[in-house]
């Protein structure tokens, strides 16, 4: 029996019921209405009162610690748009979402959000999703999975983000295909800049502008160099050739860097294949992206050359002048790009997958070296063209650069030389062939490539051959006494031969060395200087390559396994350079030395070269306290002036002075013997200093310290 208000009480019946209701609501944290949960502690005054302006739900409170005090934010759980609260209520705009006074939120806006239970799947067909909606959803999903934290990794996860965006862009079929096509092209285009070689720091966005900027420089530079000269006849042809070769070589560089990106890679296939996209769809998007990519670079590389060409060629008929220049340089660049792609297409067609991978590594590296060499030699070749053509040298018929100079001559005669103009037809034919082969191989083998990429890796039972095993066994016994030395020695070899970035980097130095060699082949003093110059290029190239990290995040293995002092690590690096770089270089030089000099002199030249190179290596590696490829590296830290000084000294003083000393020592055997003795002592001393046990007691570097954020003049006493 219940008798209401029979006795005077502390509270009225309504108040009692109200209390019960509140207790019930507080007991469940997540009821129908989220705002009705238990009150949280904290200074937020509007808890449970603020409603979301977009969806009309109550917003929850989150606290953030700032300066030791809790600061509340009001968050809508469904939309991640929030108001931060400071001293006063601040409204923060997030995209187009705006939190308004909930009481005034129009009902239409509230009703637009399908609430639980009232959502109907057919409502999807009502119209295309807006991009805003798509983005909001992507954000919301990534918010749920907590991926909002790793913003720094965005570039690497861009593909994943695109995919989520793509999946979201569902509604209208036609529009969907169009939209996803554009998105795919954009994605593939972005991936061209996401290669390890182009963006070692993993920021493809910044690299687009950087790369475009760098590649536009050479043509501008040559315009400035040749502008003051009055060019006509063969000298004009030579300068034209320089611009043609810039276009060809730079396009060649781009194709070499993008060698692996010409087809979608494994990651692309793994992520894109599960989506409802046809292979033809992927193919078209990839081809469009490739076309766009090549077009942009072709225009970029020749931009200043075309724009300012009038300053170099001041001849009549400016429109004809402009058109001939544009046609010639664009055709040359296009030919270079297409011929690299055609070569890849042919290789992929005729070779089995494993052989293709092996061969393409070699070709990519060789191309890189060749292009760098041609870059340095192109002014010389341009000015040698007159002699070559007049002496009817067969080389002119085989070198593509000259064909395009012929094409230019045919379009706008400068010398009226029939042989030169006759080369033009070769350029046209070559371009047609390259384009034809490209189309014939790229399309049919696209499908085959896709299948190959997705196949599971086969177990490969064959390990290193007996020759390699035997070599390492001998090295371990004779040279690499400490296990750590053996480990680091192998690691250096494995990285150099397998990391594309390092291979291409060294190929650049190799190409430079080859250009120097080609230039110094004429004279005897040049011959004496050559091995010294090459060893200088080699050792300094290795020093620079060792600084570049390879898979930096994997270097924890070195840090955790560092159970010996630094000595063996540092010695292994020196031993590798001596055994795998300096000795093979001089072994290659030996036949030439023995062919040109008496055997005693040749032997001394080799000993001298090796001795001097070893000293150079010890000097260059004196402060190098790293395991190669394992330390972070800030490219901005390189002191370009110091580097230029070192190189200028290297090429002028070092090789010149050493070659003079060598030629003097060859005539005085006792002095030669003394020199070799002293060189050995110096080498040992430097080695002790740089990699001895005393020097190796300090820890190895795994972090490049980089430049300080604030530079000081170090005036204050320490």
């Amino acid at each position: 029996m219940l008798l209401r208000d029979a006795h005077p009480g502390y509270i009225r019946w309504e108040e009692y019921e109200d209390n019960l209701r509140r207790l019930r609501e507080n007991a469940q944290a997540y009821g129908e209405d989220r705002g009705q949960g238990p009150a949280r502690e904290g200074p937020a005054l509007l808890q449970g009162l603020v409603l979301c302006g977009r969806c009309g739900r109550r917003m929850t409170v989150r606290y953030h610690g700032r300066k030791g005090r809790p600061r509340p934010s009001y968050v809508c759980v469904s939309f991640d748009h929030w108001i931060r609260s400071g001293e006063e209520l601040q409204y923060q705009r997030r995209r187009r979402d705006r939190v308004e006074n909930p009481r005034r939120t129009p009902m239409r806006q509230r009703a637009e959000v399908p609430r639980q239970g009232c959502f109907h799947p057919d409502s999807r067909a009502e119209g295309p999703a807006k991009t805003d909606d798509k983005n909001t959803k992507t954000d919301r999903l990534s918010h749920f999975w907590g991926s909002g934290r790793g913003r720094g990794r965005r570039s690497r996860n861009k593909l994943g983000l695109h995919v989520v965006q793509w999946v979201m862009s569902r509604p209208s079929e036609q529009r969907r295909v169009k939209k996803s096509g554009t998105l795919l092209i954009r994605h593939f285009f972005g991936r061209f800049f996401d290669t390890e070689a182009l963006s070692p720091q993993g920021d493809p966005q910044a690299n687009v502008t950087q790369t475009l900027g760098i590649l536009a420089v050479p043509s501008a530079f040559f315009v400035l160099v040749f502008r003051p000269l009055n060019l006509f006849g063969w000298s004009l042809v030579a300068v034209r050739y320089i611009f043609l070769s810039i276009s060809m070589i730079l396009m060649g560089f781009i194709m070499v860097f993008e060698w692996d990106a010409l087809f979608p890679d494994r990651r692309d296939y793994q992520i894109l294949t599960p989506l409802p996209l046809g292979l033809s769809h992927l193919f078209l998007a990839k081809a469009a992206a490739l076309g766009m990519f090549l077009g942009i670079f072709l225009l970029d590389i020749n931009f200043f050359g075309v724009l300012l060409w009038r300053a170099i060629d001041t001849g009549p008929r400016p429109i004809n002048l402009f058109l001939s220049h544009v046609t010639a340089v664009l055709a040359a660049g296009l030919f270079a790009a297409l011929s690299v792609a055609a070569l890849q297409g042919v290789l992929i067609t005729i070779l089995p997958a494993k052989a293709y991978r092996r061969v393409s590594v070699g070709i990519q590296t060789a191309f890189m070296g060749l292009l760098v060499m041609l870059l340095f030699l192109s002014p010389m070749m341009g000015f040698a063209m007159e002699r070559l053509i007049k002496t009817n040298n067969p080389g002119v018929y085989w070198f593509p650069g000259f064909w395009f100079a012929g094409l230019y001559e045919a379009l706008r005669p400068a010398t009226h030389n029939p042989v030169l103009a006759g080369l033009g037809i070769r350029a046209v034919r070559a371009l047609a062939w390259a384009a034809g082969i490209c189309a014939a191989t790229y399309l049919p083998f696209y499908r085959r490539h896709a299948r190959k990429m997705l196949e599971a890796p086969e177990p490969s039972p064959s390990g290193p051959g007996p020759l390699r095993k035997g070599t390492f066994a001998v090295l371990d016994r004779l040279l690499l006494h400490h296990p750590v030395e053996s480990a680091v020695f192998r690691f250096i070899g494995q990285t150099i031969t397998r990391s594309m970035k390092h291979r291409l980097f060294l190929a650049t130095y190799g190409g430079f060395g080859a250009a120097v060699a080609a230039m110094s082949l004429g004279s005897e003093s040049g011959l004496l200087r050559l091995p010294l110059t090459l060893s200088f290029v080699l050792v300094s190239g290795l020093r620079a390559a060792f600084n570049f990290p390879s898979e930096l995040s994997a270097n924890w293995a070195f840090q955790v396994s560092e159970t010996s002092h630094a000595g063996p690590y540092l010695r292994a690096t020196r031993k590798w350079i001596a055994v795998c770089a300096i000795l093979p270089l001089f072994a290659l030089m030996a036949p030439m030395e023995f062919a040109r000099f008496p055997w005693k002199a040749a032997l001394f030249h080799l000993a001298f070269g090796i001795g001097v190179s070893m000293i150079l290596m010890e000097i260059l590696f004196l402060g190098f306290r790293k395991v190669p490829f394992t330390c972070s590296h800030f490219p901005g830290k390189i002191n370009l002036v110091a580097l230029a000084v070192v190189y200028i000294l290297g090429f002028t003083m070092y090789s010149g002075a050493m070659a003079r000393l060598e030629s003097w020592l060859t005539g005085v055997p006792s002095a030669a013997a003394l020199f070799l003795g002293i060189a050995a002592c110096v080498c040992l001393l430097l080695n002790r200093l740089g990699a001895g046990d005393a020097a190796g007691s300090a820890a190895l570097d795994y972090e490049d310290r980089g430049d300080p954020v604030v530079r000081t003049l170090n005036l204050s006493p320490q």
Partner: protein
Amino acid sequence: MLEIQRLTKYYRNTPVVNDVSFTVRPGEITGYLGPNGSGKSTTVKIITGLIEATSGKVLLDGRDIREDPMGFRRRLGYVPEEAILYSYLTGLEYLQLIGRLRSLPPEEVDRKADHLLDLFLLGSYRHAPISSYSKGMKQRVLISAALLHDPDVLILDEPLSGIDVTSAQLFKHLLTELARKGKTILYISHVLEVVERVCAQVIIIYKGRIMAADSVEHLRGLMNIPSLEGIFAQLVEERDLEGVAHEIVETIQTAGPV
């Protein structure tokens, strides 16, 4: 015995690990639990010497590991949270690299590496580059690399991620066997069921602070909760998971302008 004493690590001004102390005894497996971002991996990175603590110290057999870091590393085997390896090396080459870096004689390294790869069912892939390995295969290479030098202290950060059922079972037996041999094992995992079965004591960390450090039985009795999962949920304030799941489904089903 591995003792962690008042370990604190600040990133900027935020304490990621806050006054953490616990002991890992030899011959038993200690489970280290906590939700993502609670400071588990930071603690482990401090112990392994990959990062430095703001304050506090780590003692091995009563001696601060900073006094002789190389001696400590010689006795340490570590499986990191993420399987980051030199992808261009083959499985065998990676083990050879690690073994030699740990100054083991080359013949011993080659023999052990070959045998371990066979035991972890990677024998036929030993000459394939790690880039072609699946996540579970990489994880097995990491476990092999951590065991290669017969360490006294084992720190295993999520060693079972991506590993198939058979290998996971093998690993559980392996853990028990290693503990029986007197190894000091710190085992970090999200798989509570495994922790419950193999760990003698568990440490639960949340937002950088230790919430509980005791044996599973003792915790069960103390909190009157039958499972470790329940204890974990009770100690660690998590989101309303059902509600979040509901929101996810609602998000993916919403179409049209919002």
